[in-house]
């Protein structure tokens, strides 16, 4: 992992270069080294950490809210932050599909069902404390440690980074080309899956099975 070079998108690289130039111009008499005033925070890292903070914070709020409506709204916020992260990875098509399908369609379905169920007063929704929750939180902390251990100490070597190519592969044009050539068969199978989902949802939510 150490051999992977630092990745800079063209825009962030340009911003950093221009910042370097202006700083060097101002401090030409005091410092002649080029890399001394290199800013350590680029636009990309700033975007990543702010969107990541929004994502983690809204996920925490989603899990801890008592009312399902508040949970659903925080989940929408989390989906928007994830859409921003996809954009920062130059996956434009996936970012907009994320906003349209997840934050639009699926969450509307959730809010609609919450409204339909009429869960009543908030007191009935309070969940009592139990030792099972402590065990559950401890187990999930174990999962987190395991994942971080795998990511940090894995000796698997990745091929060299191709991040400069990412601007070309995430476009609608390229995704559509791949979808209708290489991935044509899974795409057609998806239609059968959606048909099964429609039939299943209608049958399950019907009033009486006879």
């Amino acid at each position, binding site marked *: 992992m150490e051999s*992977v070079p630092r*990745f*800079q998108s063209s825009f962030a690289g340009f911003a950093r270069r221009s910042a370097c130039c202006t700083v060097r111009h101002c401090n030409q008499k005091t410092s002649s080294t080029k890399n001394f005033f290199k800013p350590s925070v680029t636009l990309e890292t700033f975007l*990543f950490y702010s969107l990541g903070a929004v*994502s983690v914070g809204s*996920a925490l709020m*989603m*899990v801890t809210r008592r009312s*399902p409506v508040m*949970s659903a709204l925080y*989940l929408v916020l*989390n989906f928007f932050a*994830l859409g921003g*992260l*996809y954009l920062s*990875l*130059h*996956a434009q*098509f*996936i970012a907009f*599909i*994320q906003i349209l399908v*997840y934050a639009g369609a*699926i969450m509307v*379905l*959730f809010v609609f*069902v919450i409204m339909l*169920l009429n869960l009543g007063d908030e007191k009935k929704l309070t969940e009592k404390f139990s030792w099972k*929750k402590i065990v*559950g*939180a401890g187990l*999930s902390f174990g*999962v*987190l440690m395991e*994942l*971080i251990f795998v*990511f*940090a100490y894995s000796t698997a070597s*990745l*091929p060299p*980074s*191709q*991040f400069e190519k*990412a601007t070309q*592969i*995430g476009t609608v044009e*390229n*995704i559509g080309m*791949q979808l209708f050539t290489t*991935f044509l068969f899974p795409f057609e199978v998806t239609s059968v*899956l*959606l048909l*099964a*989902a*429609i039939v*299943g*949802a*209608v049958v*399950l*939510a019907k009033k009486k099975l006879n």
Partner: protein
Amino acid sequence: MELQPYLYLSAITFVIGVVGVLSRRNAIIVFMSIELMLNSVNLTLVAFSAFLGDVTGQMLVFFAMTVAAAEAAIGLAIIISMFRNKQTVNIDDINILKW
């Protein structure tokens, strides 16, 4: 930007979803936590796709979103029929499959 921070972020989000599934008793919030876990795995796939310069990860995310939409429709239909039979969405009260 490097690959590792994206992996850590998706690990943290995934584990928040696991906490939600294990510790919440409201079936709708459990279901939303499952959606959160699906999304964190999607973030891993898109990050790998961008850093390896391979479009296959993004295609997999596209199909995962399709499956997630179908899963949301079916799961919410199950929750509606559960609520119609038992008048509750608390998963402690819904235990007829448990023996």
